[in-house]
């Protein structure tokens, strides 16, 4: 409080005598924002930007131990080439098969819808060259991804780590949202023990992912696990979660859903509790039933929060590694190997170039999905439900 009159008088003095050099106090005052921000900027640069640049360089290099130390050799895009077109293609992208008829309709619908959106943009008065390029790019990448998913999940096809990650992301987040919203709706009702359940539902989120991985590893061990006798009692002594690719993926998704549904739950609960009571009561007076109340009053109010929380979980789930690593080691085969686990497997054999290349392709995928979600999906969902 003492400094303020001094600063003001200095400023007034400076106005009265323009050629007078500014005082030390005013110069310090002017520099203070930069000085105060500097440590943060340096830390961010050191911990985030610098590793990002180094890992980009590593993704274009080969790392090798040589006598007396190590050597990093620049090899251009060879690591990316290996993943997309070379020896790692089947691992990364998967094995392509002829697309089965069951996929034709969804692919045609997706293609048609995207073409319609593009046509609408081209014919709209607000069209721009940049916007058109971005939309075309989105169409090509989304279409390519859809074709890849259909081709690797058809017949003799096998999904690579990219498609496996997409299965985890969309399967897991959809279940988390559905269950989280259901639990949140339940706890907005007048039921006994609300506070108790609120804490219980949050517990899985407090446990370390590695701990949950081991917990599910024990639970899914049908020969020696604690649930073994139950499986035997139900005549399923020879059942195994990891016998087939789909059940192994399901086990990983169940573990992830168990851990992260509480995150969805707590945020959606807060959103539901923020819905105006007056509007709901007005709806009741107008004769709306429970579904109508939810669809036309509650849902529009929680849609912005819902899309935000879905986006956060989408980005986080792309990085899934603990659960498949501990539960299945990425197996059987590569059925549960996520992109992060793929990168981690390369990294632990010190193939830093390939590991960094996978990490960059993951970064690109996450950024693309997040951008599409924010610019196309989120906006349309909010418009549709508002």
């Amino acid at each position, binding site marked *: 409080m003492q400094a303020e009159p001094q600063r003001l008088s200095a400023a007034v003095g400076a106005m009265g005598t323009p050629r007078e050099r500014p005082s030390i106090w005013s110069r310090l005052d002017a520099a203070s924002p930069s000085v105060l921000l500097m440590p943060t900027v340096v830390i961010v640069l050191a911990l985030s930007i610098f590793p990002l640049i180094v890992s980009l360089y590593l993704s274009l290099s080969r790392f090798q131990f040589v006598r007396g130390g*190590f050597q990093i050799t620049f090899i251009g895009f060879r690591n990316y080439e290996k993943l997309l077109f070379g020896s790692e293609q089947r691992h990364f992208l998967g094995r392509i098969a002829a697309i089965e008829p069951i996929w034709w309709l969804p692919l045609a619908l997706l293609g048609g819808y995207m073409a319609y959106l593009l046509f609408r943009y081209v014919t709209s008065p607000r069209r721009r060259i940049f916007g058109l390029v971005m939309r075309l790019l989105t169409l090509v990448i989304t279409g390519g991804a859809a074709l890849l998913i259909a081709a690797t999940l058809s017949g003799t096809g096998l999904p690579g780590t990219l498609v496996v990650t997409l299965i985890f992301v969309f399967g897991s987040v959809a279940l988390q949202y559905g269950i989280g919203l259901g639990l949140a709706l339940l706890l907005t009702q007048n039921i006994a023990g609300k506070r108790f359940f609120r804490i219980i539902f949050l517990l899985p989120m407090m446990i370390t992912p590695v701990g949950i991985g081991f917990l599910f590893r024990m639970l899914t061990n049908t020969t020696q696990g604690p649930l073994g006798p139950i499986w035997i009692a139900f005549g399923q002594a020879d059942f195994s979660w990891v016998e087939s690719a789909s059940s192994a993926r399901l086990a990983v998704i169940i573990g992830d859903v168990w851990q992260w549904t509480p995150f969805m739950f707590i945020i959606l609960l807060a959103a539901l509790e923020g819905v105006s009571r007056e509007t709901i009561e007005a709806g009741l007076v107008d004769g709306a039933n429970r579904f109508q109340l939810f669809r036309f009053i509650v849902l529009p109010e929680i849609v912005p929060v819902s899309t935000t929380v879905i986006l956060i979980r989408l980005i986080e789930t792309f990085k899934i590694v603990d659960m498949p690593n501990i539960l*299945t080691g990425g*197996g059987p085969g590569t059925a549960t190997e996520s992109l992060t686990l793929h990168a981690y497997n390369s990294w632990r054999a010190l193939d830093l170039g390939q590991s960094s290349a996978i990490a960059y392709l993951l970064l690109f995928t996450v950024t693309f999905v997040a951008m599409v979600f924010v610019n196309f999906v989120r906006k349309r969902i909010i418009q549709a439900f508002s």
Partner: protein
Amino acid sequence: MKKQHLILFLTVLVAVFATSAVFAQDQYAGVTIDVLTFTGPQIAEPLQRHAPAFAAMTGATINVVTVPFADLYQSILTDQATGTNSYEAFVFAPQWMGDYIVPGYLENLSPFVEADEALAWEDVGQFFREFSSTYEGSVYTIPLDGDFHMVYYRIDVLEQLGLEPPRTWDEYLAIAEAANGQDMNGDGVGDYGSCIAKKRAEQGYWFISSIASGFIQTQGTSQGGFFDSETLQPLVNNPGFIRALEIYKATNAFGPADELNIGVGDTRGLWVAGRCALTLDWGDIGSLAVSEGSMVNGLTGAVILPGSTEVLDRATNTLVPCDETTCPFAIDGVNHAPFAAFGGWSGGVSAAADPLVKEAAYAYLSYVSQPAQSNIDVTIGATGFNPYRISQFEDLQPWLDGGFTQEAAENYLGAINASLSSPNMMLDLRVPQNARYQQVVLDEVISRYLADELTAAEAAAEIEMRWNEISDELGRDAQLAVYQATLGIQGGN
């Protein structure tokens, strides 16, 4: 107190008094040694257990730090390459040593070994002194363990079936099929004909080499079983390796439903619970079978790795029958190539440590390896240490004190000795970055094959293509030179 624990306690007590004469009191007072190894309880257990006695004698503090097996290789490398130097000693797979020695991360221990009588260096089996410890003529690690794959069988189950222990892999499959579904531990539930740890990213990838060795290596240890010793062409895309793949997959039918997701810890648990008729493992099963709570004490037999009556002719890339020329080391017409998988846990010292710390770290590794400690440790299943000293094969008393019967000890040590003394023993891979060949490519492709993602022919072709890619990337000539140098080592005690 149980007899085994009492003997262990007394032995430790005697060892403390005996070795205290060697170490000056508080010679390393104030020195802290951080030892990095893999998550136990095996291997880490004896390192932790011996620490207090060593501390009492020398004043040094021992901290044993553990990481999962799959992370150990790079944890050592990154600690040293980044100059973090958090650890003064490492206990690891000796096949990785080249990657640590070439950049200069491991201390040359030859001067220490030469001046260390208590270590009884000549008592260590020649194979372990060479393969597990020596690189380009100098000693870099101290052997703490001896590793071979063997087949274990249930004596009572085979007697009941009227079958002999398997000599070939076809016999292994026949026994597994006959025993599968029988109740072997009296709990009223059908048990398994064969239990093999096949989980990805664990130790499973070694087992395919154990099956393939008998088909691929025929002309002695120096022939090598991973690559052609003249061209470094991988020995995988051939009828021998493909047959091994088929056998490996065929064992799935006689194992637990989740066999593709179980590690050696799980299969060992199943074995001591009496749930398997056959298993393929390192020496640990022998001592675990006599441990407390085991249901197979006195019922566990061990035998050298089964082999084949048909072997790979490398010139024509076809399988040919065994005869005097094609299988000069065959036993009763069966070519055995016991696989020295892993080679045995060994301890090295960081070159970046201070001289006194290096000395103390070496002293601790030597202390754990000395006969007074190791000859007891190898008889205890929980240690994960298997015999590697000549005295451990010659003196049966520690084994008898450890709970073995005379017959069981002779059977167990006989199987290891048969492997160790075989002139056709197959060495594990010790070329630079062998983790990429085995831990990444072999592990992943075998896992995909077992999960029906690939056919046997596709799996063999993919391993060949990717191993060649790694060799070309790292320099084929340099890799070949190291491979040839490794094969110059001969087996035998």
